[in-house]
């Protein structure tokens, strides 16, 4: 079972993802509400997959991604973003993001992305 760390400042999105993932055999082992917490939790929990929101307070998703990738070059991070954030996603991909999920997402679209990892 793959372990997942969900990073998003919106509780609602975290809950949505968690429900979708747990229903499909992923093990959600942690949640973080900003990039700084995400980096800390990544170190602690060593999840197989990270879903990473982009717009967050304190440390944003792209910066957190960079820090995580600096710690672990094999980290599998999937960005979660809204339409209109293309440039940020591009930056994230350059920084090593494995893929991205577009909000609003459906269970199907989330699985399609995560199963490719």
């Amino acid at each position, binding site marked *: 079972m793959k372990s997942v760390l969900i990073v998003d*400042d*919106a*509780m*609602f*999105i975290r*809950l*949505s993802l968690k*429900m*979708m993932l747990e*229903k499909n055999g992923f093990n959600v082992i942690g949640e*973080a*509400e900003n990039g700084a*917490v995400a980096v800390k939790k990544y170190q602690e929990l060593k999840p197989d997959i990270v879903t990473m929101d*982009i*717009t*967050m*307070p*304190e*440390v*944003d998703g*792209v*910066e957190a991604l960079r820090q995580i990738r600096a710690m672990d070059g094999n980290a599998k991070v999937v960005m979660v973003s*809204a*339409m209109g*954030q*293309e*440039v*940020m*996603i*591009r*930056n994230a*991909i*350059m920084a090593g993001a494995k*893929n*991205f999920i*577009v*909000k*609003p*997402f*459906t*269970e*199907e*679209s989330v699985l*399609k*992305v995560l199963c*490719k990892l």
Partner: protein
Amino acid sequence: MSEDGISKEPMLEMYLFEGNQLVEQLEEIIIKCEKDKQFEMGAINEIFRIMHTIKGSSAMMMFNQIGSVAHSMEDLFFFIRANENIQVDFAGLSDLVLSGIDFIKDEMNKIAQGNAADGLGDDLIAEINIMLIQMKKSYEDQNAIPAVISNSPPNETTTKYYISSYQPPSEGKEDNTKYYVQVFFEEDCQMENIRAYMVVNNLQDIVNEIYYIPADVIDNGESADIIRENGFLICFSTQVSYAEVESTLNQTAFLRKMEINQVNEYPAEITGLHRRREIVLEDTIAVDEPPHPEFAEIGKDRDAGTGNNRQQNIISVSVAKLDMLMDIVGEIVISEAMVTKNSDLAGLQLESFSKAARQLRKLTDELQDIVMSIRMVPVSMVFHKMNRIVRDMSKKLNKEVDLEIIGETTEVDKNIIDHLSDPLMHLIRNAMDHGLESKEERVRTGKPAKGKITLEAKNAGGDVLIIVRDDGRGLSRDKILNKARERGLVHKPEHELTDKEVFSYILLAGFSTNEQVTEFSGRGVGMDVVTKNIEKIGGSITIGSLFGKGTEIFVKIPLTLAIIDGIEVSVGLSRYTIPTISIRESFRIDEQDVISDEDGNEMIMIRGQCYPVLRMHRMFAIKNSVTRISDGIMVMIESDEKTACLFVDKLVGEQQVVVKALPRYLKKVQGIAGCTILGDGGISLILDAHGILARQLA
């Protein structure tokens, strides 16, 4: 989302919970900005982020109107954020954001009540867009730059990333295989251009050279349409095996169709690419990339305008679950009493049982305390809501007002706090509308032009005291008395009435001394509703005022509704529980100590003070009770400075009881606060001292 088989219920709850929280946070930010007369960068970031979050969540829940309003607001603040030195009409902007907040709030309320979110945000969105257009225009005028391009620092370009343009085939790489790949993505997968870019990015490590069409996938959002129509064309040469190429390409999500061809020469559209590509390159570098503030502002996010840094060690639990927990703990407390005080045990010497029972008692007490504390929430949320009301009203009434908030960390039970917001809102409105004078009048009477309203909360024994204080004109005793006389509300000689009693007339139904009906506080409906609402949660209101100096309204509410300390008393075969807080003392007296007046009202003198005697068996028409004063016992109860002695048969014991509401089919009886189940399974009615005194001493 329901087709995904995910239950919407908890999602909806979370959506509303978080949405409301965000909206309130937003409101606070706006009001603070207004006070400071500027929108700080931190605040703008925060507003942008909140709108972004609301947009995302609303889209997930398919509340499209809310989503669209939040989206246009997000766009607006995106622009402001990107152009720090832009001229903004702050008053207009905060008005606009506040109407946006109101719209979202209204819609969320509708949803919470199970109605459709049917409001249309079109007008609002149009308004927001107009503001954005105006801003852009004034910005352009100001900077005389002909396009929507910005003043971003040129270092942004360093993050740009280009894949080499076509170069003539290099020599010495004969073992390279050339590929021509065409990729089609699934419909509705969105952002095809970025997905195409990902394909290229994945190939990076295994190819020697790579070309693709459309070439401008990163910079040109419209390339997504082209890819959707014609697919994405990639040509590359590599030394790795076909299998590896295939597996690399297969990492791509949302692949609908992919053709991988090994070719000898790249097709003409690719070889012809390099010329065009170079031109494109120059163009893009010449023009600065629109700033992406998400980037530029990373550092500034840190000092965002609110103090609401959420802590990670906090989880949110639905109130329904807490209610359930509370109920179960209540049952446990009762069961514990049922076991340890079981009548089967009467007269037995059970040393170790008693020891175990004591331990159990200790633990259930602790459990109870913890459950209670979980339910406690600070009043700050409710208090800060008042900022908005003061803001709106001071604008409309043209009164300058400072709202001071004291003791916002004071905690009360969640159930109580939900009933607090409306009455407080009303009191604040009254203070704004009737309490505070107009600017001119204030200056004339030597007061500062700016009025002041204080909202204070503090603990007072088992209660919480909330005080709404204004430095306005105060209440006029004569005016109120006149009005009360007109309405036939005065039942006592007027010179005997204390100021407090006179002021309390305004709490009665149909009373108002304000001749003008304003938009905010009407005529007479209001204070009595406030009183009723407060009484419903077991609270009371008293008023103090100095004419010309101001008014103070004291709202006393219980910390919790759920569990109280009580003394159990018996009258006839019935049992009653009197909240310990309302009991001052209890004592036995003799028949001859009781004095009767000519109407048959009984009284006793204690330490030189005269107290009315209320016989419980008469009040509740109970048969077979003790009627001889010397055989029963007196319990002195007090509430709001009223005191009386209750005559009951005997005191049974002291215990904590779990308050249960009376069943709905029972009419509300004044003086009964609820009921509780006793250890032996019997039912005891809980007396409400305030109600009893009001009922008997009216």
